[in-house]
C-alpha cells in the first residue's frame, strides 16, 4: 500500500512537472520561422470579430494570430503583466503620447513600415525625433448625440420659447441652453424623463466628463498659448490655468440640471445606463462618441431609429463657437513590442498591413469592426455605415473647426481620478466649484512634476 501511494505521488509530481515544462515551450518562433502574432486587444466590444479575423488570416497566410482581449478598464493592468511574460504580446496598444511615456522601452520604431506610409495624415502618429512608435488605426469623434424625433416633436410645440425650428440651427451655448431648459419644462409632453441622459458618475464611468468634456475648454486654453497642435502644447504644459473652467461648468450644469436623474443619485449611474436611457427614448440627448452605436443598437426595446440619430458639437459658451465642429481624434495607437523576436515583429507588422490594406482585411475593418480607418488604402466607398460613424464623416466634410482630442495629453490616470473625485463632490453638493478648479490646476502640476 505504502509503495502504491509513493508511486502515485511520484507520478502525479512528474505529470505536474512535465505539464509545466510544456507550457514554457517557445511557441513564439513558429515551426517554419514565419513567426507568430500575439495581439492584445483593447476593445472588448469587438473581441469576437478579431477572433474571426485571426482565423481567416491563419487560413490565408498560415500564420498564427493569438488575440487576447483585456476586460473593460483593465488594459494597462493586463498589459503590465502580459508583457513581462516569455510569450509577450507582439502587438499592443498605447493611448497616445502619455501612454508612450509609460511604454517607450517596449515600442518598436515603425518609421520604415508600410503601415506608417499608409497613414493619410502622418501627424496623427505618436512620434518624436527618434522615430514613429504608435500608429492610430481608427478615427473617432464625439459630441452631443440627439434624437431628432424628439427634437422635432419639441419644435412642433405651439408654446415653445425659441424661434428656431430645427435642431441643426442650434449653434451656440446660449441657444442650446434655451432649448434644453424649455424642453425640460415640456418634458411630460415630449414623453421624456429628462433632456440629457444620466451624467454617469459611478467609479470608472466619469470619463465622458473628465476627459472628453474637459478636453473642450482645454483645447481652447492650449490653442491660445501656441499655434502648434494642442496635444503637443498640453503635453509640454507644466501647469494649466483652466481658463475656461466656467465654460466647462456651463455645459456640465446644463447636463445635470436637465437630466433624467437627480444630482444626488448620479454616482450610481454608468455609461451603459445613460446609453440605455437614450436608446429607450427617455432622454433626448447624450454626450458620447461614435463607438457607442453598438450600445444604443443592442438595447432591448430600442426606440431610436437610426435615421434620427444626429450629432451636435459640444457648445460651452466660448466666443466664436458657432463654427465649432465635433471633437475628432483617437486614443487608439498600435505599437509593436521591441523585445519580441524579429520574426514575430515582422509577422505582426505583416498582419496589420494585411488587415488595413488587403481586400479581405479592409472588408472586416469597415463592415464588422466599423472603424473609420485613417489609412489611404481605404477608398471613399470603404467607410463604415452605422449612423454615428456616418455623422462623424459628414461633420468632417463640413466647414467646421474640428477640435483635437486635447485630453490625450492629460498628465496621468491619477489626474483624471482626482478630477473625477472633485467633480463627484461638486455634483452631489459637498464641495463647491472653486474646489474643482483648484483640483485640476493642482493635480496637473503635481502629476507633471
Amino acid at each position, binding site marked *: 500500500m505504502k509503495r502504491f501511494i509513493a508511486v502515485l*505521488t511520484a507520478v*502525479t*509530481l512528474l505529470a505536474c512537472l512535465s505539464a509545466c515544462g510544456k507550457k514554457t515551450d517557445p511557441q513564439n518562433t513558429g515551426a517554419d520561422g514565419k513567426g507568430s502574432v500575439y495581439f492584445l486587444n483593447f476593445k472588448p466590444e469587438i473581441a469576437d470579430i478579431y477572433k474571426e479575423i485571426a482565423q481567416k488570416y491563419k487560413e490565408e497566410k498560415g500564420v498564427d494570430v493569438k488575440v487576447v482581449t483585456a476586460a473593460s478598464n483593465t488594459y494597462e493592468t493586463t498589459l503590465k503583466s502580459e508583457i513581462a511574460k516569455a510569450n509577450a504580446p507582439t502587438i499592443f496598444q498605447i493611448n497616445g503620447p502619455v501612454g508612450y511615456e509609460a511604454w517607450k522601452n517596449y515600442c518598436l520604431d515603425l518609421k520604415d513600415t508600410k503601415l506608417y506610409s499608409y497613414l493619410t495624415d502622418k501627424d496623427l502618429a505618436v512620434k518624436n525625433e527618434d522615430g514613429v512608435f504608435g500608429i492610430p488605426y481608427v478615427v473617432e469623434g464625439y459630441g452631443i448625440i440627439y434624437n431628432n424625433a424628439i427634437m422635432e416633436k419639441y419644435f412642433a410645440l405651439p408654446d415653445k420659447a425659441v424661434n428656431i425650428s430645427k435642431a441643426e440651427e442650434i449653434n451656440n451655448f446660449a441657444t442650446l441652453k434655451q432649448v434644453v431648459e424649455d424642453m425640460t419644462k415640456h418634458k411630460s409632453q415630449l414623453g421624456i424623463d429628462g433632456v440629457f441622459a444620466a451624467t454617469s*458618475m459611478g467609479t470608472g464611468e466619469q470619463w465622458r466628463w473628465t476627459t472628453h468634456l474637459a478636453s473642450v475648454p482645454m483645447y481652447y486654453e492650449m490653442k491660445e498659448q501656441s499655434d502648434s497642435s494642442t496635444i503637443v502644447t498640453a503635453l509640454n504644459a507644466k501647469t494649466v490655468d483652466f481658463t475656461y473652467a466656467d465654460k466647462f461648468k456651463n455645459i456640465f450644469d446644463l447636463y445635470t440640471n436637465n437630466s433624467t436623474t*437627480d444630482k*444626488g443619485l448620479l454616482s450610481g449611474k454608468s455609461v451603459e445606463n445613460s446609453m440605455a436611457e437614450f436608446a429607450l427614448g427617455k432622454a433626448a440627448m447624450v454626450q458620447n462618441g461614435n463607438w457607442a452605436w453598438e450600445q444604443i443598437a443592442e438595447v432591448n426595446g430600442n426606440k431610436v431609429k437610426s435615421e434620427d440619430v444626429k450629432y451636435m458639437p459640444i457648445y460651452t459658451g466660448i466666443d466664436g463657437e458657432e463654427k465649432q465642429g465635433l471633437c475628432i481624434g483617437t486614443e487608439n495607437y498600435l505599437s509593436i513590442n521591441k523585445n519580441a523576436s524579429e520574426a514575430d515583429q515582422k509577422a505582426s507588422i505583416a498582419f496589420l498591413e494585411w488587415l488595413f490594406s488587403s481586400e479581405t482585411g479592409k472588408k472586416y475593418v469597415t463592415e464588422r469592426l466599423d472603424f473609420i480607418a485613417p489609412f489611404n488604402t481605404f477608398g471613399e466607398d470603404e467607410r463604415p455605415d452605422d449612423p454615428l460613424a456616418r455623422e462623424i464623416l459628414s461633420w468632417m466634410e463640413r466647414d467646421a473647426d474640428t477640435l483635437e482630442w486635447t485630453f490625450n495629453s492629460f498628465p*496621468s*490616470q*491619477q489626474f483624471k481620478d482626482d478630477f473625477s473625485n472633485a467633480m463627484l463632490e461638486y455634483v452631489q453638493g459637498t464641495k463647491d466649484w472653486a474646489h474643482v478648479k483648484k483640483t485640476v490646476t493642482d493635480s496637473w502640476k503635481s502629476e507633471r512634476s
Partner: protein
Amino acid sequence: MALKKYFPVFVLPTLIAFLIAFGVPFILGIFLSFTEFTTVVDAKWVAFENYIKAFSNADFLNALWFTVKFTVVSVITINIIAFALASLLTKGLKATNLFRTVFFMPNLIGGIVLGYIWQLIINGVLQTIGVTITYDAKYGFWGLVVLMNWQLIGYMMIIYIAGIQNIPTDLQDASKVDGANRWQTLKNVTIPLVMPSITICLFLTITNSFKLFDQNLALTAGAPSKQTAMLALDIYNTFYGRIGWEGVGQAKAVIFFIIVALISFIQLGITHKREVEQ
C-alpha cells in the same frame, strides 16, 4: 528509515508550490520595492526613494488611518456579535442548526459580489434622502463595517460555537453550585476556556479587516475623493494609476505587510498568554 526515504516525495510538491506561489513573489516583491520599474523584468535600483515617497504621500497616511479606524470598530462588533450568537445557539434552542446555517451563509459569497449587493441596498436606503453612498465618507465607513460584519460574523460564530461546546459541563455546573451568577460564569469560566477560539477569531478579524480589498473596491472604490480608500486599495491605485509609481506601490505593499505582521504577532502573543489549560 521509511520516513527519510519518502520525505522528499511528500514534501517536495507542497514545497515547490509554496516557493512558486509565495516564496519567489515575496522576495521579488521586496526587491522591487527598492527599484523603479514598469514591468517586473526591467527594474532599476533606486534604494529608499520609494519609501520616502510612500511616507510623504498624504493618500497613504489617510488610508492607513481609515483602515485603523475601520479595523478597530469592525473587530469589536464582529467578535461581540459572533460570541453572543454562539452563546445563544449553544443553549439547545429549537432550529439551532437552521440558524447556524443561515448565519454562516453570507461567508460563502465572494467579496466583489457582496460589495455590489450592499451598494444596491445602501443606495436604495439612501435614495429616500436623495443621495448615494458616495455622498459622505461616513456612509462609506459604516457601509463597510456593516458589510464586514455581515460577512464574518457567521464564520467567527462557528469557531466560537466549537469553543463553547468544548467546555466541560461539570465546570459550569460547579460554578452554579458555588452560587456564581450568569455574568460571573461567563467572565470566570466560559471566556477563559474559549480563549483559544478568541485568539483565532481576533487574528482572523484583524488581518481580514486590515487586508480588505474586494469589498472596498466594489462598495465605494474610495469615493468620495479617496476618503474611504483602505490601504490595499490605495496600494492598488498607486501601482496601476500612476506612471512611474509602480515602485512606490510596491514599497507601500511592503510597509503594509510589516504592519499586518507586527499587529498579528503582538495580538497572538497577548491572547496566547491568557489561554488556560483545562
